[in-house]
């Protein structure tokens, strides 16, 4: 049985299409693997029998783990929150419907930081997810369940959402590929909103080819999301083997950014690979990127405070304090339903938008956002890509940063600027490094960002680099 679980999505889909592998046998093998989840990666497993007919398509027969932020008709959807406990959406998110139309089937719903707010998965109301590489450490967040499921052999691929790094950072910490497409590439319909101007869906996979397959299936304009535009020309399997003629920009102020020595070593080794493959390195200036965290932690909470106003105990989810008056019911429901981090961000966002503070915080943050987008635009006139480490450190220990929300936020330093600019960025596993405090070697991700809607080019370069790096380390299995 282990054999078929080793296949990549592309390999399994090809074998199923050629009837060398039974879709039913493949799905059942994964269902069994997922049922053995000892990482708390899943919140729900699909209960209903899966229709193995009508599975034609590029992803025919492929099981996919879906972050519990995507509405799935008839299957519980909680966004990692108590306030949505027991909620069964009456419709399915467009991204999931598109995967289904390509022949894939939902394997289960994965654990996440509540309403996607977090960088460690410790903000889930349903307990933290463990990192398969070291169960005393976090898998990253907010899509930690999706990343841990793929890295831990509990799913062949998964989808998640990225608002400020929530796909790229967990992919980095779990040693897999995670892609945040351009804002607007994939419909947000049915994706529970956190910060609507930043949220974007994307894949978690073992390799770049599989990421391209999932993106190809999901991208496209959707009448249900007027901000979705799709990717012109679609997405094809990448095949490029060298980086000749391509220029990679390394931010000049990167040297001053605080990141682990082990991460730096892997980053520099990867730059060397780029040169070996014929790519050219150049320094680029992103002077406003250092203000990314400040701008992000105004804009995202501001949007969240507005989006989360809908959880008031009236139309769905839980209700508490229903024997008081209406206002008491609202306040009791929200106070009992939301966790600490969600309350913190609602408070922050409400404050930033409140009368007298709006211009100083929200208005100013939106201008910084313009500056950051301009920085990237200027950089992309000189280079094809901008590269950074994905995360300043390898996976940190459970509980290490929970007492200090700011230190947790700073973890998004390298991923937030691309989110604010709305451009695509990928994290690919580039090597292993020892944590600062010592311990076993853990994965380090390499982030590549490209201009808006240049996903094909981004995937081609990532593929060439992936082939050269040949990252094949795996978690060492259950270690208790």
């Amino acid at each position: 049985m282990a054999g078929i679980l080793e296949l990549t999505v592309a390999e399994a889909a090809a074998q199923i299409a050629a009837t060398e592998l039974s879709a039913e046998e493949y799905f059942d093998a994964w269902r069994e693997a997922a049922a053995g989840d000892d990482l708390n990666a899943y919140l729900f497993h699909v209960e209903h029998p899966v229709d193995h007919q009508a599975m034609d398509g590029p992803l025919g027969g492929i099981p996919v783990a879906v972050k519990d932020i995507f509405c799935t008709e008839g299957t519980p959807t909680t966004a990692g929150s108590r306030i949505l406990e027991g909620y069964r959406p009456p419709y399915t998110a467009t991204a999931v419907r598109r995967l289904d139309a390509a022949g894939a089937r939902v394997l289960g719903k994965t654990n996440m930081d509540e309403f996607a707010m977090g960088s460690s998965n410790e903000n889930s109301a349903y307990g933290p997810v463990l990192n398969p590489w070291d169960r005393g450490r976090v898998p990253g967040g907010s899509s930690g369940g999706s990343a841990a499921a793929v890295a831990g052999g509990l799913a062949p691929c998964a989808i998640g959402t990225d608002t400020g790094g929530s796909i790229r950072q967990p992919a980095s910490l779990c040693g897999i590929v995670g892609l945040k497409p351009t804002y607007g590439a994939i419909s947000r319909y049915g994706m529970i909103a956190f910060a609507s101007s930043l949220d974007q869906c994307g894949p978690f996979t073992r390799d770049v080819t599989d990421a391209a397959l999932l993106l190809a299936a999901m991208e496209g304009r959707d009448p249900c999301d007027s901000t979705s535009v799709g990717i012109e020309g679609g997405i094809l399997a990448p095949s490029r083997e060298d980086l000749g003629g391509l220029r990679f920009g390394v931010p000049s102020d990167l040297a001053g950014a605080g990141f682990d020595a082990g991460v730096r070593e892997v980053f520099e080794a990867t730059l060397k690979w780029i040169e070996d493959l014929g790519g050219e390195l150049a320094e680029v200036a992103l002077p406003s990127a250092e203000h990314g965290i400040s701008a992000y932690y105004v804009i995202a909470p501001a949007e969240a405070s507005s989006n989360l106003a809908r959880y008031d105990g009236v139309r769905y989810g839980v209700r508490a304090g229903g024997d008081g008056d209406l206002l008491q019911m609202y306040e009791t429901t929200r106070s009992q339903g939301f966790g600490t981090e969600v309350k913190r961000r609602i408070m922050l966002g409400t404050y930033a938008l409140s009368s007298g503070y709006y211009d100083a915080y929200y208005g100013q943050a939106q201008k910084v956002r313009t500056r950051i987008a301009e920085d990237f635009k200027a950089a992309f006139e000189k280079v094809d890509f901008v590269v950074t480490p994905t995360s300043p450190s390898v996976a940190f220990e459970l509980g290490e940063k929970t007492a200090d929300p700011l230190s947790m936020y700073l973890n998004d330093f390298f991923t937030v600027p691309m989110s604010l600019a709305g451009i695509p960025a990928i994290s690919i596993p580039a090597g292993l490094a020892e944590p600062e405090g010592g311990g076993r070697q853990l994965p380090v991700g390499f982030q590549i960002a490209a201009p808006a809607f240049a996903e094909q080019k981004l995937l081609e370069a990532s593929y060439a680099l992936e082939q050269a790096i040949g990252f094949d380390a795996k978690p060492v299995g259950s270690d208790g």
Partner: protein
Amino acid sequence: MLHVARLARLKLTEDEVETMTGDLSGILEHVDRISNLDLEGVEPTSHVVALENVWRADEPRPSLPPEVALASAPEPQDGAFRVPSPQADA
């Protein structure tokens, strides 16, 4: 803090008010770095994709039947969402 909590429809315990005050001061101190930047004349960005007026045909489409829309409601009644009275003494 209590004013903001009221605006956000949150009821915080005394402990929460205390922790939240400390946490938010720390975060705002960091965020304040941008308040002194000279950004006079910079256009604010609210949305990154240059889209304007996305239209669709104004045609009736099927929508969720009432019983489906009400299926997840904590207290549905007579085809509507029942809520407590807005008047404290009602």
